[in-house]
């Protein structure tokens, strides 16, 4: 089963890194979609079928935590698994993300294996 993955990060360099890490990890991706902030990400969710969201927190216009809150308010995509990939590492930030039901919290800089392991864990539960 191929998964459609939405990468949300205001840095195009970071989106590129994440896309490459996932591509070489063997994770079965149908299509990658990208967004530069929460507002753009909600637009993608409205238009595309997305199976997994990987989101930064610190972004302009709409940050990652607000974006996930908006996701959870929507009946259609409230159950899509979300993994945060961010430099924000304070316990308060991690707790807030976890309270929103995110499936993982990965801090930058990250080893590629960390993303691979987290995606495999989610993939396993989805089967």
């Amino acid at each position, binding site marked *: 089963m191929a998964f459609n993955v939405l990468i949300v990060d205001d840095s195009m*360099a970071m989106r*590129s890194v994440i896309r490459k890490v996932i591509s070489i990890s063997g994770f079965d991706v149908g299509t990658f979609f990208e967004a530069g902030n929460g507002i753009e990400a909600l637009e993608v969710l409205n238009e595309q079928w997305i199976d997994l969201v990987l989101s930064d927190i610190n972004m302009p216009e709409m940050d990652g935590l607000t974006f996930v809150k908006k996701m959870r308010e929507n009946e259609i995509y409230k159950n899509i698994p979300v993994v945060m990939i*961010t*430099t924000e590492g*304070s316990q308060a930030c991690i707790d807030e993300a976890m309270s929103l039901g995110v499936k993982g919290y990965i801090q*930058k*800089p*990250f080893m590629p294996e960390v993303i691979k392991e987290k995606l495999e864990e989610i993939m396993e539960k989805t089967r």
Partner: protein
Amino acid sequence: MNPTDRNVLTAVVQEVFETMFFTFVDPIGEDEMSQITSLPGPYFHGQIGVKGENGRKVLDIFIPDEMANSLTETILRKEDNKSVSKEELIDTTKEIANMALGNILNKTNKEGTQRLTTPTAELVGDISPFIKDSGMEHIYFETDWGIMVVLFACG
């Protein structure tokens, strides 16, 4: 800069470059630093701070432009062989500043409620006067592309 802060800052900067860019940067000793009087550039200058708690923390990083080019090309690995744009170089510089200060906070103030500001970046020329007048603690790193400079203010 006290030795502990210097060690944390050095380790964080090295971790960012090694983990994300597979690039090694070596800190230059303070004696050797004092002999470097000219940093003509051009450099990509990234800056980021924190908000949310009393006290000020600001990190400035000056990446030699050829280094920024190489790192960005490595990340984006363009299939059409087009050279990277200035916008892409600025984006990479901002993300490096973001990861560096974020990790300093993670290592020194995990329980804090501070949040990172939005990073900024620009292309600059000779940074010698800026370093001299900044009053900020700084570390020089030897790289394959010249001297990289990181300034950190914590008050």
